[in-house]
């Protein structure tokens, strides 16, 4: 006898559980990076940038030919990386720089995030392809 006889329901619960298990530590890491590192590196805009780049690398890696892909993408990709990285805080950081009449800094934050974000995603993908290269 199983508690959840419906296979589809069990499958969906497993998906949600995997996402949740990744999401909580991802958000906590982003928050603690802001609390602990922000004074040292010059503000939350920089710690948000750091976690965004880290998450882009890891998600790029997961986008490659990794083993056990579905579970890892759900837990580490959609859960952990999705939660660790943040688009909304990035845009809020840019808007605050604009409000503070620092358009140069705002533009730099946009440009560096985009260029470095794509580079990190690409590096992640390449290293994954290199590690799990199909023979």
């Amino acid at each position, binding site marked *: 006898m199983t508690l959840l006889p419906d296979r589809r329901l069990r499958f969906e619960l497993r*998906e*949600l559980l995997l*996402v*949740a298990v*990744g*999401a*909580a530590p*991802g*958000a*906590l890491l*982003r*928050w603690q990076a*802001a609390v602990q590192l922000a004074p040292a590196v010059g503000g939350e805009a920089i710690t948000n940038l750091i976690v*965004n780049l880290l*998450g*882009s690398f*890891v*998600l*790029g890696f997961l*986008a490659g030919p990794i083993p056990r892909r579905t579970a890892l993408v*759900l837990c580490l990709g*959609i*859960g952990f*990386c*999705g*939660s*660790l*990285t*943040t*688009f*909304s*805080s*990035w*845009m*809020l950081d*840019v*808007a605050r720089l604009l*409000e503070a009449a620092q358009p140069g800094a705002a533009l730099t934050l*946009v440009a560096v*995030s*985009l260029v470095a*974000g*794509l580079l*990190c*995603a*690409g590096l992640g*993908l390449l290293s994954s392809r290199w590690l799990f290269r199909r023979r």
Partner: protein
Amino acid sequence: MRDVLLVAIGAVPGAWLRFRLVNHLEPLVPRKHWATFAVNITACFALGLISALEHACGPRPPLGLLLGVGFLGSFSTFSTFSVEVLQAWLAGARRQSLALLLGSVVVGLLAVMLGLWLGA
């Protein structure tokens, strides 16, 4: 300890909602990355609104941690955005890729500003 719980309690439904929304929107939009786009823009608007309300009504740290850091931080995602821009580019959909890149930044910034303005 309470703060840890607040962030985590906000983060889990944020990630669930993003996951479910992207899966539900996928058949409706031409490519999956436009669903991520919709999620990110919505989060930008909401974060702008919350940030302006905090500014106007005085900071409410528990609410900011739960909704701003936890829920919206988790709901919106930069990593999926950058990987999807890269994948669209590598798949040869270069105009889509550029449209997603520029559209996300421009519309995201406008959404945050709209939220900030409405909440002020």
